């Protein structure tokens, strides 16, 4: 066993988990507080990535790209909340799924009209676009940056949710919405704020993913499924649940992809192992989700009790 490789893969798993957390945090807050099933969360992530790549190509500045993407996602998020989603709160999840699925189609086509079908590559400053040596192996600088930004965001969210008035309202909204409304809190405004926060987080996730994963139409749908798995495992509405679940999923997925074929070769012929390992590796997280749903259907850290 190569210990540095194992350690490097753990770091890769952590980094993938952080990226998933950025996306899942917004999703879980919106779902938990507003009881809104928002499939278009991935579209906001995609818009964040496209805006960031465009700004980065035009100006060469990563920070400017990041700011522009978050603001764009926030504004578009608030627009769709006020114009469309507001009228869906009283309806069932199925109507919400249908409407937000429609939004996915709309935004995919919008991006196609504005940016064309070929997608973009987001340039990075040279010092980000290489690797540094840490703990005896080299690791991409940018991925370390992703881990850093993710941890800062997690800390920020934790502080906001547990130590501010708005955070208190979010927690109250997640556990009993009707009572919060009855106590005279402006639920309409709270919902717009929460949805805007979720959208901004999706935009941030889009920026952070863009320089690694390429910017393309439909990039949101691919990762959205994983984000849903994260919030189901973590417990809907719980930010700390999303954080833990995202990292668990990131690590399991990465380790499965890296070591499962070697593991299978211990008891299977090489040919069969090479075919079976990738298939099983891509199932691991769903097996985990099924197990969590079976033994603890409310998730690891449920917000509602």
């Amino acid at each position: 066993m190569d210990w540095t490789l194992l350690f490097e893969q753990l770091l890769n798993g952590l980094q993938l988990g952080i990226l998933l957390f950025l996306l899942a945090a917004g999703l879980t807050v919106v779902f938990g507080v507003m009881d809104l099933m928002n499939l278009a969360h991935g579209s906001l992530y995609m818009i964040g990535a496209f805006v960031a790549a465009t700004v980065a190509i035009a100006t060469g500045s990563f920070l400017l790209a990041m700011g522009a993407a978050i603001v764009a996602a926030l504004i578009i998020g608030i627009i769709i909340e006020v114009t469309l989603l507001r009228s869906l709160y009283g309806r069932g999840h199925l109507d919400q799924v249908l409407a937000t699925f429609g939004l996915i189609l709309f935004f995919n086509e919008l991006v196609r009209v504005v940016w064309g079908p070929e997608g973009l590559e987001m340039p990075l400053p040279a010092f980000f676009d290489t690797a540094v040596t840490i703990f005896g192996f080299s690791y991409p600088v940018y991925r370390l940056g992703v881990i850093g930004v993710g941890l800062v965001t997690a800390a920020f969210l934790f502080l906001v949710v547990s130590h501010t008035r708005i955070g208190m309202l979010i927690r109250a909204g997640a556990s009993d919405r009707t009572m919060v409304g009855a106590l005279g809190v402006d639920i309409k405004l709270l919902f717009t704020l929460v949805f805007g926060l979720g959208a901004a987080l999706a935009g941030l996730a889009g920026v952070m993913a863009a320089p690694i994963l390429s910017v393309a139409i439909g990039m949101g749908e691919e990762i959205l499924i994983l984000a849903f798995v994260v919030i189901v495992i973590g417990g809907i509405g719980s930010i700390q649940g999303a954080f833990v679940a995202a990292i668990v999923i990131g690590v399991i997925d990465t380790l499965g992809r890296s070591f499962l074929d070697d593991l299978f070769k211990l008891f299977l012929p090489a040919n069969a192992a090479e075919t079976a390992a990738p298939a099983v590796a891509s199932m691991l997280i769903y097996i985990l989700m099924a197990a969590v749903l079976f033994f603890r259907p409310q998730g690891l850290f449920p917000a509602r009790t």
Partner: protein
Amino acid sequence: MKIRAILWMISAALAVVGLLAVVFVATDKAETVKIGFVTTLTTGAGVIGRDMQNAVDLALDHLGHKMAGLDAEVIYADDQFKPQIGKQKTQRLVTRDKVDFVSGYIWSHVLLASRKTVVDSGAFLIISNAGASQVAGKLCHKNIFTTSWQNDQVPMALGKVLNDRGVKSLYIVAPNYAAGKNMVTGVERTFRGKVAGKDMTKWPGQIDFAAEIAKVRAAKPDGVFIFFPGKHTGAFLRQFKQAGLNGKIPLYSVFSVDSISLPKLQKAKMDGVLGSFNTNFWSPDLDTPANRRFVSGFRKKYGRYPSHYAAQSYDSIMLINSALVAVKGKLKDKDGIRRALRKADFQSVRGPYRYNQNHFPIQNFYLRQVVTDKDGNWTNRIVATVFKDHKDPYYKLCRMRW
């Protein structure tokens, strides 16, 4: 008297029917030839479909939208990059639109799901990209023709290049689906060195290759072989560079660094790809009369280089046209059309080629290198011929004889 009247009426009726038949045959002659074209027009892979669609439109322009006097109509269908949707769309083309030819197909898994639907309908299937090994072998069919290649061939050419360049150990990364498996088999057929490691990634969902790239670095190979069509190319190349491996481990690719990905890579100034090698059956700079016309026409109309996907699609339309000209537009003459298709008697962009017994081209394969053209655009240029008149490795499994 009565009998005579009846006879007269019968003959009059027959005459009317005969006249009508003549009229119908005549309108039949002036009808249209319908071609269904299945490709991916949405999702991140839609950029490939756009290239193919543009090439087909250009071919129709070059033909004046006529084939042997018939109006040529192409109906595009979007498979959404999914086998089940591809099959549904194919079904609709053959049953509702009643097309005479079905063409296109980027993805081997979509092709394998749709193949039987076309064959059962009696329409001809002219494959413009997907070179699934099954269709070249056991599943070959008298009405299926290909204007591209069999998946194994291009990586086989690359394997030979690797031997010639003295690569002793190779790490392979490719997606885990029908074509990805063929590509890996292909390179392993000819590469004589050691395979230092192999990773098959989830397709098309996986775009983060951190785990695989970490394994590549740990294995310290002489080269990395990748096959990532469409947007995955950019993602892999970026992550490879971010891992600090650019210039340390040479990268060899098939169907990844092409006119689809290069403009995007150039825009992001990812110059690590300049000078890298790949193999293919065609290149924008291939010097044949048809290719000069195709490439200059494409660049003039769309302002960019065509990809091999475009070249194959252009050839598909020209092949269909050649067969219809040979039977003078008689769409009912299936045997005549098939005989003509088998001759491949048309100006292909790759130059003249013959069909093997499984209806796959016997053709050359070239080594290409990424260079900057005189206008400053990144493009592929032919460096050497790797295989001459190469046959795919599956044709002996095909039982068809002609």
